[in-house]
């Protein structure tokens, strides 16, 4: 469908990473006119100036109420909330809620066309959430490794033993107490701080 590419899609979101992921996804799928609004002040005026066909917004964004107003007064062609107005597709609705996506159709787009865009948004929001989880996990691992290295250094110095032996001691304590080695390392660091 050639006119599909002309749809004006607006992403209202302040998270630059999530926005980039979604915009790239939409562009890859051939939607050329993807715009981002990342400030929520004066939102109604900004969105009217853009003249969007569809607005994608985080389900938990307080500015959803602004969109409720917009679709209410944008005239006879206005359609209410795309995904929630028609509860016949409960799988799509549940997926969208789990991902935290809501979509507003400003003009009378056909349901199938909206569904394609919403499905894509859902998968991109989920991809972003996974990325963030991985990032948090990676940061945690990094912090753990740092704590273990510091604690190991303290043990080596206090007991005048080589690195491998210090590590082996910490691992043994961790196993005996049923804890992670990083937890033992943090206990050592706390105790050392205390006794300094």
């Amino acid at each position: 469908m050639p006119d599909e590419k002309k749809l004006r899609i607006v992403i209202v979101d302040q998270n630059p990473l999530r926005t980039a992921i979604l915009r790239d996804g939409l562009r890859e799928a051939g939607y050329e006119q993807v715009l981002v609004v990342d400030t929520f002040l004066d939102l109604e005026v900004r969105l009217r100036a853009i003249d969007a066909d569809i607005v994608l917004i985080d389900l938990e964004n307080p500015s959803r109420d602004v969109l409720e107003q917009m679709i209410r007064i944008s005239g006879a062609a206005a359609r209410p909330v795309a995904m929630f107005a028609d509860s016949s597709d409960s799988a799509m609705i549940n997926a969208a809620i789990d991902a935290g996506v809501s979509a507003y159709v400003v003009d009378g787009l056909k349901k199938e066309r909206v569904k394609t865009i919403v499905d894509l948004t859902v998968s991109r929001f989920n991809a972003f959430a996974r990325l963030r989880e991985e990032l948090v996990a990676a940061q945690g691992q990094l912090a753990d490794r740092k704590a273990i290295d510091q604690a190991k250094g303290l043990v080596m110095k206090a007991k005048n033993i080589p690195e491998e032996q210090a590590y082996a001691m910490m691992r043994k304590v961790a196993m005996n107490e049923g804890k992670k080695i990083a937890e033992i390392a943090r206990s050592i660091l706390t105790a050392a701080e205390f006794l300094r």
Partner: protein
Amino acid sequence: MTRLLRISYMPLTDAGLLFVAAAKHFDREEGLRFELRPEASWANLRDKLALGICDAAHMLAPAVVASALGLDGFPAPMIGAVALGLDGNAISVSPSLGAALRAKIFGDASDPAVTARALAEIVAERAAQGQPALRFAHVFPFSSHHYQLRLWLGAGKIDPAAVRLTVTPPPLMEASIAGGYIDGFCVGEPWNTLAQRSGVAEVLHPCCALVRDCPEKVLAFPREAATLEPEISHAAARAVQRAAAWGERQENHAEFCELIAEKLGAGATPEMVAASLGHDGSAPWLRLDAQATALSGAQALWLFVLMVAAGQVEASDANAEAAGKAFWPLDGAPVAPSINLHGGTAFDPAKWRESLALF
């Protein structure tokens, strides 16, 4: 055995009876356990209620009436099981609009008709000079905030089309008025007080100066769920009423306000809550007493009139009848107070069409 009731709410002072019912275990005494979940938008509350993600919601009373009329584009009508208070909103303006109004006021500045006539002059002057129209924000298309702005404009015989009415989420009101994107707003507590404290807005009128004992928020249930299990919505209504009756007693005033302020957070203080309720001797803006939890068909009809005046629904008898059934008063509950309009007349549900002349 207690039954879990997942209730979503917006962090506003008039969610207070839910906080108090849970904190003082009035919910348990009615066989329920309120699990309270804050939300960020009215749209989210409505959606989550319709989709069964929550069981009940702190909801704008007009949004419930709108759903009964099928105006919200949703095939999931809500009902009001108990009122969560009356009044509570205020109109605030930017310091510059406040000063412009004072320069033109002729008469008692606490009378909204007086300030509205001053506003009418300013609106006309701006139009004559080709300046952009003044902008006023409310919170949702189906909200008493929206209609109270229209009532104020009506008191000055100002055509609503001569100003711009827009929606701004309450947490953004302060930044919006400070940034010059809006010239005034109508919002519930604690937002007026917070904006006034930071100096970006001044409270012009509590909305009870425009209409007193106006229905504001209700505890909403999906109509289907309330029909299938009426005992649940009734028990929740009783728990709310008990919280209100408890809070009404002088000896509980301090704890009542503390419980609400603590749960609200975000800069709200017990003193602010006490001031809005008139506990400090000032004129109350907000009612959270037991009588203020009563619902009536007349209240729903009044909200219908406001919707008609805002051009949201046709003034037909069939619509009036459907609207009147949106609230389900509890048997044996106190009688809801009648709605008193500016000038002292009470709203007469039998003559609802005549009330349209107010706008």
